[in-house]
């Protein structure tokens, strides 16, 4: 194990934890759907960073971590597209993107 921070897996994992916590905090405290989507993106990214780190430092010939990171990126993009489409459809109807304003099911 070298003394360089950039070649120490723990530094990446701690960064990942911090980003995940920030994303979680955003999801928990915000009322705006857009902000919640942003928080979810942060959490997904943190987990993808974890995958890459483990792939790089556990066994360098195995690239499965990269595959999973790419899957996360693709799924995040799909999720964002659908979420934002729903958001815009709601916004066209209700003129609001706050979660409280759209809690009722009909009417």
């Amino acid at each position, binding site marked *: 194990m070298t003394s360089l921070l950039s070649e120490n897996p723990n530094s990446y994992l701690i960064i990942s934890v911090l980003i995940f916590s920030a*994303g979680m905090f955003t999801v928990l405290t915000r009322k705006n759907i857009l902000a919640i989507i942003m928080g979810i993106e942060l959490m997904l990214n943190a987990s993808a960073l974890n995958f890459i780190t483990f792939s790089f430092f556990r066994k360098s010939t195995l690239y499965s971590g990269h595959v999973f990171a790419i899957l996360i990126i693709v799924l995040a993009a799909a999720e964002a597209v659908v979420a*934002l489409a729903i958001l815009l459809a709601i916004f066209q109807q209700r003129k*609001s993107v706050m979660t409280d304003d759209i809690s009722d099911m*009909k*009417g």
Partner: protein
Amino acid sequence: MKDAIFILVAVFAVGGALLTAASQSIINAALGLLLSLISIAALYIFQSADFVAISQILVYVGGVMVLLLFSIMLSSGSTDFFKNNPAMKVFPALLIVVVFAGLAIYALFSANLTFYPGQYGPSTREIGNLFLKDYILVFELVSVLIVVMLVGAGVMLRKELVRKAVASDGDSKDEKENKK
């Protein structure tokens, strides 16, 4: 030198995430997210994952962030500022987050994982091989998912459907305002 750049990138990544969490203006939050995403791509490059890093920039920065900015601009009338969630105040949320982070870091240092020094090299060919050999089912499923997503998003935003929903929804806010 490498460490200096690494620390800079790490600060950007975490700082962007914190900006997203703490900012009062939605556009600042989006900028923080952008900064964080680009810095995470740089972190991937530190770990020799060039293909994933470029995918990150292409999909997140070029796709998701643009969509987010689009939504912010289209709905900017009502979303200029954040409001906090009434069900979850800041302090309990902070407590949960701190407990989670502490647990995760404690787990990290107590798990006694064995790490090997990473090896640098091109990854694209290996990723392609894995996708077409070991993970072919996942690959196909993801492509099906993307088709479903495309069709779903397209259908959801068709003008006629939205208008019909508004028309059948007798007391939606839109019509209430019109009646007033």
